[in-house]
């Protein structure tokens, strides 16, 4: 049963990953990328890494790809223009693809990190908690790496905001803090005046 599920989701993942790079419409390519993430989350579930699988869906499917789709949907992409440089860029593309393949082969297939170097992971009991195990490792053994990663992310956020922040003082926009701080005396003046008859009114 598990093997069938593994091959089903793996085939699903490979197929949708292929569709990402072959489909012409960029929005559809993004949707296929979502399917790829989904299938890989399912494969991680089979590895008993339920925390990572759910985080993959929340972060990549729920946040990153949504923002990605925003950008792709808003852009006016000319598909013929995209296809134009295909032949010209082909040699570079082949070189990059070969380099990528070589690295992947070195990591996965070669003598260094191949599957045969590792024992099959033990099957855990039903009460095994992936989150507790991960938390213990992250906050004890790898706490410095974890904190450094957090600081780097924070720097990234600050950098991204400071790069895109433009102050435009001349635009007409609301200052909400001023609006909240306003008092009725600032806006309303109660005037006392003597009553007087209007023209044509009977007295």
């Amino acid at each position: 049963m598990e093997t069938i599920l593994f091959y089903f989701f793996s085939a699903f993942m490979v197929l949708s990953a292929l569709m990402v790079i072959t489909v012409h419409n960029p929005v559809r390519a993004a949707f296929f990328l979502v399917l790829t993430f989904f299938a890989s989350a399912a494969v991680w579930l089979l590895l008993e890494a339920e925390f990572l699988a759910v985080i993959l869906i929340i972060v990549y499917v729920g946040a990153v790809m949504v923002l990605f789709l925003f950008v792709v949907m808003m852009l006016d992409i000319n598909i013929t223009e995209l296809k134009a440089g295909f032949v010209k860029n082909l040699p570079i593309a082949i070189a990059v693809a070969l380099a990528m393949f070589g690295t992947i082969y070195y990591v996965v297939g070669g003598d260094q990190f191949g599957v045969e170097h590792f024992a099959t992971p033990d099957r855990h009991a039903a009460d095994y908690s992936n989150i507790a195990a991960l938390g213990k490792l992250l906050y004890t053994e790898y706490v410095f790496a974890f904190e450094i990663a957090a600081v780097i992310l924070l720097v990234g956020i600050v950098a991204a905001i400071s790069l895109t922040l433009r102050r435009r003082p001349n635009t007409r926009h609301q200052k909400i803090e001023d609006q909240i701080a306003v008092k009725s005396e600032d806006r309303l003046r109660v005037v006392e005046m003597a009553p007087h008859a209007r023209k044509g009114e009977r007295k």
Partner: protein
Amino acid sequence: MLDLILSIYEIPVINILVKIVAILVPLLLTVAYFTYLERKVIGYMQVRIGPNRVGPRGWLQPIADAMKLMFKEIIFPSGANRVLFIIAPTIAISTALAAWAVVPFGAEMVLADINVALLYILAMTSIGVYGVILAGWSSNSKYAIMSTLRTAAQVVSYEIAMGFALVGVVMAARSLNIGDIVQGQSGSGILGWYMWPLLPLFVIYFVSGVAETNRAPFDVAEGESEIVAGFHVEYSGILFAIFFLAEYANMILISVMAALLFMGGWLSPFAEVSFLGLGSSFLAGSSIIWLISKTIIFMFLFLWFRATFPRYRYDQIMRLGWKVFIPITIVWIYVVGIMYYAELAPWFIKG
């Protein structure tokens, strides 16, 4: 005969299917009568009568509405992507219903008792955004896609505040399992509920939930008084009804989660309370009736909000989410950390 039925029930697949039906049928009936209740409650709040023509006191109104929508023609806009046009409402309803798999209704009454239940529910709501995005994009309509961008931006923004609010709950309960979170609130009746130490997070969770489900006062996606509809403007018939169903199922989900995470779920407010001997009366027992009545409070709040508050403007919605809610939640997470180390009774005592 009974033995035969019991032996069939023992087959795992059948067992799970029966449980799924036992959750979904009452849920869908609740959704149907929630729409009726909404129209009646808002009617009374606005000194009207509400639906009263179909059946006694209008009780058959939701069934009549469902029939009408089912027999209406489904219109595909020209140039629409037909496959995605149908997949969009399917994603909306399937994520809204799939989230119910991990919702416990009692100490033992849960379909899937998983460790990452809370994250699973967040994941399901975040996949639900794709229903909106696909609907707007596949309709091949400018209005639909503009509304898609607004709705999706709103949902994604409030998801962050909601996630931070849940971090406080997870810190207090030291678990992501909803059953454990409810158990963490037991021991001292109404005072033991997490809504007291986590009051700001509780308010933010529920308001973010209202914004996530695109309900009033955050319903810019379908402001009935100003625009026709939002991302589902091109949908008709049963496909529109499915979006509607998903929205209401999500509202009930937000309500039941608020009851479970902050108000002790199925625990009785009178448990172990010495006042007037309530702690030893029949009221102190924990049961699903407590969970349902707490959920109904929140479901009623959804309707009350809609009848009371004027609609937020879009930039105000974004300001509230990013500049008010997220800073408050981050500050309160630090406060929860302090309470955690102080082992503040009765919520943060380490077991």
